[in-house]
């Protein structure tokens, strides 16, 4: 909307030379960064994705071979895609449901609200830190908190949750859900925008609290839910630190995330060309996910008529 408006302004308006000069002067740092860190790398990356570049020798053109290999025979790619999509499909809904639930709880007038808000938000700010991944590994790993608790109750386990290929990914998912705080804050500010009058008139008509939640809160919040969903999916697809530190992709590749696989391909095996092809497939997946979400928007996101 805003962009279309800006365009029609451009067509009708004459630019003063001074505005042009000042505009580009102000944009200079960003433009340098855009060219040096985005435009040139993007071009190089597209080119390398069609080569066998390995840092040591000059790249040879191989056409679509990298893409064909990835999509037809690369079992690690399939595993990484499966793990990453699984992570996103389980973690994001759980995190959002939890965030919405807690935001609803905190949207009442009780003593100590500010303290709870802070308490729940702290994991979100430190979640990306190495220190937290280290802690997670120790809590769920061998000799960890869970194992020592189980032992206490006399339950002997052969594998820890981190050591078992069936449960390792859930440990990482749990860490994602644990960081529900920032979504919760966004929901809280969304909840505060819903006019009280809506709830009051519904209550007068005899609607139960549960009905009010489903018929008023949820529809009014759908724009916020949509925004959260897009952001969390894009962020979730790039998970790396947790799987690198807690499990290093194991056991048996059960936590090999897409970015971890990309990292290994490029910086352990030095298959630079191949990893660039992997990167562009990831861009396609993210683009596709975003387009699909925007397509579904009409059928479930409720925008107030303005």
């Amino acid at each position, binding site marked *: 909307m805003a*962009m279309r408006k800006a365009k029609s*302004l*451009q067509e009708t*308006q004459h*630019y003063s030379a001074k*505005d*042009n000069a*000042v*505009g*580009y002067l*102000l*944009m200079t*740092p*960003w433009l340098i*960064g*855009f060219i*040096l*860190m985005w435009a*040139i*790398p993007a071009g*190089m*990356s597209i080119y*390398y994705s069609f080569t066998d570049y390995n*840092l040591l020798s000059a790249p040879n053109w191989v056409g679509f071979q990298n893409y064909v290999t990835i999509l037809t025979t690369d079992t690690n790619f399939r595993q990484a895609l499966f793990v990453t999509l699984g992570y996103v499909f389980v973690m994001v809904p759980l995190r959002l449901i939890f965030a919405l639930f*807690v935001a609803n709880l905190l949207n*009442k007038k*009780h003593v*100590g609200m500010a*303290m709870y*808000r802070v*308490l*729940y938000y702290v994991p979100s*700010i*430190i979640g*990306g*830190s190495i*220190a*937290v991944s*280290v*802690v997670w*590994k*120790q809590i769920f790993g061998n*000799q*960890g908190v869970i194992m*020592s608790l189980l032992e*206490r109750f006399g339950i002997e386990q052969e594998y820890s949750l981190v050591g078992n290929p069936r449960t390792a990914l859930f440990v990482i998912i749990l860490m994602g859900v*644990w960081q529900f705080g*920032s979504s919760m804050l*966004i929901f809280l*500010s969304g909840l505060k*925008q819903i006019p009280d009058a809506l709830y009051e008139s519904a209550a007068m008509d005899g609607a139960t609290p549960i009905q009010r939640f489903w018929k008023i809160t949820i529809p009014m919040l759908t724009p*916020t839910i949509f*925004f*959260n969903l897009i952001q969390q999916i894009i962020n979730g697809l*790039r998970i*790396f*630190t947790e799987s690198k530190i807690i499990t290093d992709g194991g056991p048996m590749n059960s936590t090999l995330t897409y970015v971890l696989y990309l990292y290994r391909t*490029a910086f352990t095996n030095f298959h630079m060309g191949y990893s660039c092809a992997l*990167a562009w497939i990831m*861009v396609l997946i993210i683009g596709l996910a975003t387009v699909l979400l925007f397509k579904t928007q009409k059928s479930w996101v409720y925008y107030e008529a303005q």
Partner: protein
Amino acid sequence: MVGEHKNKRLSAVCFHVFSLLLGFLMIYPLLWLLASSFKSNDTMFHNTYSLIPESWDIIQNYSSGLEGVAGYSFLHFFKNSAIVTVVAVVTTIFSSLLAAYAVSRIRFRGAGFWFGCIIMTMMIPSQVMVVPQYIILRALHLNDTLVAMILPWCFGSAFFVFLIVQYMRGIPRDLDEAAMIDGCGRIGILFRILVPVVQPAIASAAIFAFYWIWQDFFQPLIFVGSPRNYTIPLALNMYTDPNSFNNYGGLFAMSVVSLLPVILVFIKFQKYLVEGIATDGIKG
């Protein structure tokens, strides 16, 4: 009436019991980290869940952690992190502010196009660009330097541009025009009129930048190779390798140290942070 009152009391009690329990679960990992940094290495893994050390060894843990690894003390890594973070935060916010002002306030040719490009870079994850960025840095002989970790940030970041643009849009243009009539130039308007008004947005962008850069693991891991240039996340990663550093007490102690600046900034500036998320959430 009395029954209703009692009901209310009961629901308040239930609420607080639940909230406190959840709050305890949420910060248990942090309490556990702190407690473990006080435990002696030989009792560390006995009743691991306990938050009360069986035998204390604070001095040994923190001093052995500070000694560092690979011939560098932990303070050296701390210094590297501090340099990278301060320079990167200041430059990225400054560049983002200039770009935000240009696209939201100056009528120049291509403003809409460049704003579109800014939004586009926000959609593409930085991990995708990391291989060619590494190749470029290597060609410039900048890989394995502190500069390599600053360079991706110092020209501004789309998220911060977007955050400041959103805030600036809410400020009436009359303010600029009045200043212009009083003889203020376009650059003067930005620094004298707008910066004081958009200060909350700048503050929350700066705090986010601090968190991301201080905790960033991915880019340093790729751009830096020798321990001399390690930041704290890379150093802690080396501490977790049992072959180079087999000392859990030291690892946990330094993990606590690495989180301290983050927690302190949060306590000091949480107002800006919560506001930043709220405005971004509504308008985004």
